[in-house]
């Protein structure tokens, strides 16, 4: 039986990675379909190799940092990261900023690649587009895995969550062979924002030396409080309407 902390670590890593991988997949798919699969796959592979190198270089350094300092630093970064996602999700849910549209992102990338088709460096540009998409979204996935995993020694669980998301997106994407527009991206981002902000408060507190009442169950209470407040914020913001 997984502890609430392990369960929330897997869930947060899975959901956050799912959103990021869907965005990277859209661009790689656009490159593969519009140009060819060779630059799409080479660009993606190079980006993944660079991400692995970064993890291998920086990963072991975390073991050298005292646990309270690590929890505090990770907690603060998660607070900043989670509150940013939560704010954006609230504003999207209340109609203040447009929802992220994978079909539009796909069309934009496809259009750009078509305009570059006559260029001598078209293959290189296509490969660079895939490389950039995988690297930039991948950096976020790596941060999420390290952040939600390291502070409680649960990097394995976080890694399992992220890897499951990658495999799932690749399987679904390969089957449907088009951008994954049906993914309820804002609902996922809302959930992830709530979870990461809860983790952020929890670990910043632990980093300060606090023993939360109920230990890991405090995470559930934080989720409920933040969730209720965010739902209220969406209602209020919808009511304001400008």
């Amino acid at each position: 039986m997984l502890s609430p902390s392990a369960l929330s670590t897997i869930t947060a890593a899975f959901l956050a990675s799912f959103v990021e991988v869907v965005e990277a997949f859209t661009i790689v798919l656009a490159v593969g379909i519009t140009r060819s699969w060779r630059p799409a796959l080479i660009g993606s592979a190079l980006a993944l190799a660079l991400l692995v190198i970064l993890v291998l270089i920086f990963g072991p350094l975390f073991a050298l940092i005292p646990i309270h300092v690590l929890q505090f630093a990770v907690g603060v970064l998660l607070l900043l990261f989670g509150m940013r996602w939560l704010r954006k999700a609230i504003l999207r849910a209340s109609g203040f900023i447009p929802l992220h549209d994978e079909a539009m992102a796909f069309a934009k990338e496809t259009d750009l690649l078509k305009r570059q088709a006559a260029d001598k460096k078209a293959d290189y540009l296509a490969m660079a587009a895939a490389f950039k998409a995988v690297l930039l979204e991948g950096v976020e996935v790596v941060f999420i895995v390290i952040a939600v995993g390291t502070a409680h020694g649960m990097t394995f669980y976080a890694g399992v969550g992220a890897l499951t998301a990658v495999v799932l997106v690749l399987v679904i994407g390969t089957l449907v062979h088009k951008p994954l527009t049906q993914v309820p991206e804002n609902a996922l981002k809302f959930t992830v924002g709530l979870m990461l902000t809860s983790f952020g408060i929890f670990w910043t507190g632990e980093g300060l030396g606090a023993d939360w009442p109920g230990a890991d169950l405090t995470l559930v209470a934080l989720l409920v409080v933040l969730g209720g407040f965010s739902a209220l914020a969406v209602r209020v913001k919808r009511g304001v309407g400008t």
Partner: protein
Amino acid sequence: MKLLRQIWDELVGMFVDDGALAAQTVILVAGVTLAALLGLPALWAAAVLIPGCLVILGASVMRAKKR
């Protein structure tokens, strides 16, 4: 060079969107850390983070203009 710049922007953008939200969060954390260092029980200091984050988030959401 352009790619490095984009990677850097992406890294910063992971944590900072609304600058005021990020700045207020850092000030809140600095405040509770100082309070804990000055002798406030760690649990009390940590508990202040909860309403503090809610106020900062709420204010940031209410400030946002329609795009």
